[in-house]
């Protein structure tokens, strides 16, 4: 599904990631951890082709990203739902419209999928906030809306970058539960977080593989987690 083979990524003359080899199998749940600035976001961006490796091979859905044109990358992203820490919404659109955005840009009729949209907003607990604008939402609500947007196309993979970074512990647990539910539905999930408490809490709910980025390389984390 997503494979990185001896991938390195340089930026501004420095090497951010080095010799990363990673295979994300369908239906798996991964945590990616490490201190701030260790390269978690860079690695996630390599996984949805927002960055192209400086060396090595990144493969999305059996296609090398270097061989994909911009349209090919756009089409691949429709199979990958991304949740950012800062959520990235269009502030002039309502939450319902933001959640439906992937449907609109892919040419599907968002009006015809109103029932699906309502179910999704209800699932993340935002039915009452559907017509609110993004700046009117709390951090937790924004994260849940971003998660709803990430899954509305029923993607194969969900990548979440510090999804609990701006929310309290209860909201973290709620978001984690939603991600675990998605994984139980067969979705592949990868969550980048520096919150080890969240990873420990997840262990009782899901069989997750924990990767740690240290010294620009990815290692399988040990039993200390």
């Amino acid at each position, binding site marked *: 599904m997503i494979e990185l083979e001896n991938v390195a990524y340089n930026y501004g003359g420095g090497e951010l990631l080095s010799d990363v080899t990673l295979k994300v199998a369908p239906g798996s749940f991964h945590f990616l951890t490490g201190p701030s600035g260790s390269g978690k976001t860079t690695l996630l961006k390599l996984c949805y082709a*927002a960055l192209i490796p400086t060396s090595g091979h990144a493969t999305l859905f059996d296609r090398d990203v270097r061989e994909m044109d*911009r349209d090919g990358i756009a089409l691949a*992203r429709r199979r990958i739902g991304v949740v950012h820490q800062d959520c990235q919404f*269009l*502030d002039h*659109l309502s939450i319902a419209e933001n959640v439906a955005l992937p449907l609109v*840009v892919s040419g599907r009729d968002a009006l015809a999928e109103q029932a699906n949209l309502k179910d999704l907003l209800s699932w993340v607990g935002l039915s009452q906030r559907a017509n609110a604008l993004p700046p009117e939402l709390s951090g937790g609500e924004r994260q849940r809306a971003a998660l709803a947007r990430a899954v509305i196309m029923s993607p194969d993979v969900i990548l979440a970058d510090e999804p609990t970074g701006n929310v309290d512990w209860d909201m973290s647990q709620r978001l984690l539960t939603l991600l675990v539910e998605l994984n139980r539905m067969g979705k592949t999930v990868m969550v980048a977080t520096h919150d080890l408490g969240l990873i420990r809490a997840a262990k009782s709910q899901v069989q997750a593989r924990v990767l740690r980025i240290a010294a620009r390389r990815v290692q399988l984390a040990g039993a200390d987690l």
Partner: protein
Amino acid sequence: MIGALSRFATLMAGDAQADRVVPPTGFTAHLTLFSAAVMTFLAVFALALSLATGRLAERWSSELARSSTLRISAPVEQIAEQTQAALRVLNTTEGVASARALTAEEQRALLAPWFGPDVPVEDLPIPQLIEIIEDAKGYDAAGLRLRLQAEVPGAVLDDHTRWRRPLVRAASRLRMLGLVSILMIGAAMAAMITLAAQAALAANAQVIAVLRLVGARDIYISNAFVRRFTLRALAGAGAGMVLGALAILLLPAAQDEGGFLTGLGFQGWHWLWPLVLPPAAGAVAFVATRNAAQRSLRSMP
């Protein structure tokens, strides 16, 4: 071609959902509207100038190409005799279709702009003019001059070549200047719309990043901007065209006294020409915005 037109029509027809994706962009919208309106207003004048000078060049070249003038300068008592002699020579010259002496009224009309309408032509020692019309083949000017020199000593042949050619050349260049002006106006409009589109794209970098994140293809994003800017340019150009055509209508009508300047405008079906300008402005905006959007998008991840 049909496929491209169909795609263009689909793009212009729009998609209500897609239209909402790109937020309204304040000053770039006004800049596009204003520049399209002003440029089209100027283009209407350049077009009118070009068409008027085209008519002028055509008239000068066609009216004067086949005519020449013979001037008989002689003592008053010999004028009539020399005129008759000149007409005999001309009527037997190969290439001359007709020749006739201008009447006193016609000569008075020629002098009227300088001396007023009541000038007593008969009492003034002015030369007699003979109008010569050539046939399709034309005559040998050098040979005619030699014959006239021998038989009508006071005759001076003016085949208009000396002053007609520079006038026609000047009119043709004015027409070319008008066309070049239209092209330059189009280029300036393209540059302004490109700047406005680039400003809008830069201001919406975050919007574009979100759209790319959720799987929007470049064509979808660029179409959203292209459609908006093309419609704005069309609207602005439509207003500029109407104002320009009204201004041309308000110009004084063509009059003999006014000469060339009062003939600046459109005549007959030429009034349809300004209608070409708004679609042309729309096409310029379409190409300029699409190029700007594609360039900007290629620089984004």
